[in-house]
């Protein structure tokens, strides 16, 4: 897949130059000013023991919560929601079991033993997300209202991402049953979708869909 130079891809490329998270490095991220004057300033709160070579804006107070976030300011400022001043794309590298040090350690050991292939796939899994401006457009079109709050967009993006996950994983199960290999084909996705519908994970329309 070719890389375009939008802020999200640029963040990925910069991350790929660094090594994957390894055994704990002492303390949080170091100093260095954030580029908040420029359009694509990269501000990061580094609060877990992760790799050290990152531009970090230290003015933010460090919290005890183990969160590591890369915030990239996007260029378009067409958001008018009350909660947001700028349109921010947030990169989440927070471990899901952040409050449990034992689970965190377990996660670290697993991650350290990943092959390159596994690591690349895991990275894609963590970093990929449906784009919020597009989702906002879709939601405005569906609801007919002009304003959609930021939390709603975030929640729907999260739900949709997990739904894609269910689709793809079920499709892989279908492929294993049929003893096929290679890229997933539309027939697998359709079968996977049918199975999800039977499980009740897909909202059913009371009226059948017309005029697609």
């Amino acid at each position: 897949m070719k890389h375009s130079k939008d802020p999200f891809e640029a963040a990925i490329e910069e991350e790929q130059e660094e090594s994957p998270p390894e055994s704990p490095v002492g303390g949080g991220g170091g100093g260095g000013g954030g580029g908040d004057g420029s359009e694509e300033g990269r501000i990061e709160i580094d609060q877990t023991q992760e790799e050290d070579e990152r531009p970090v804006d230290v003015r933010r107070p460090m919290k005890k919560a183990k969160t590591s976030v890369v915030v990239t300011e996007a260029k378009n400022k067409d958001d008018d929601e009350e909660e947001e001043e700028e349109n921010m794309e947030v990169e989440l590298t927070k471990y899901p079991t952040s409050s449990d040090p034992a689970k965190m350690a377990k996660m670290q050991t697993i991650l350290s033993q990943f092959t390159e292939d596994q690591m690349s796939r895991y990275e894609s899994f963590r970093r990929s997300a449906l784009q919020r401006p597009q989702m906002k457009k879709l939601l405005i079109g569906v609801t007919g209202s002009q304003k959609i709050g930021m939390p709603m967009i975030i929640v729907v993006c999260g739900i949709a991402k997990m739904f894609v996950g269910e689709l793809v994983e079920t499709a892989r199960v279908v492929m294993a049953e049929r003893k096929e290999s290679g890229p997933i084909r539309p027939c697998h996705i359709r079968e996977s979708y049918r199975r999800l519908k039977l499980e009740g994970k897909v909202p059913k329309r009371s009226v059948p869909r017309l005029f697609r």
Partner: protein
Amino acid sequence: MSNTPATAASKSKAAGTSQPQEKRKTLFQKELQHMMYGFGDEQNPLPETVALVEDIVVEYVTDLTHKAQEIGSKRGRLLVDDFLYLIRKDLPKLNRCRELLAMQEELKQARKAFDVDEKELVD
């Protein structure tokens, strides 16, 4: 970001929708490719698979939002809680949404503190 598909779609519409090459406006194509790879597909998923998944996801979001609107109309506005109510049975999704909302709150607080600190430094 999605300017090219949009203008292509409008051009084909102006020329008449009975054109053989009708370009569909894709919303999430690029991100979906990364996402499908992350979830188990190949590094480069088939374009027809990505198109199908996009259609399914758009339909899913649309239906979910319609249902949420029905619930929300009883109290007046559409709220985030309507979506949370709809996925209440699906525990992984529900927990993930709670996590996302908590994280957004945290970020908001951090950003607020950052703005305050910056102002103090300027003065």
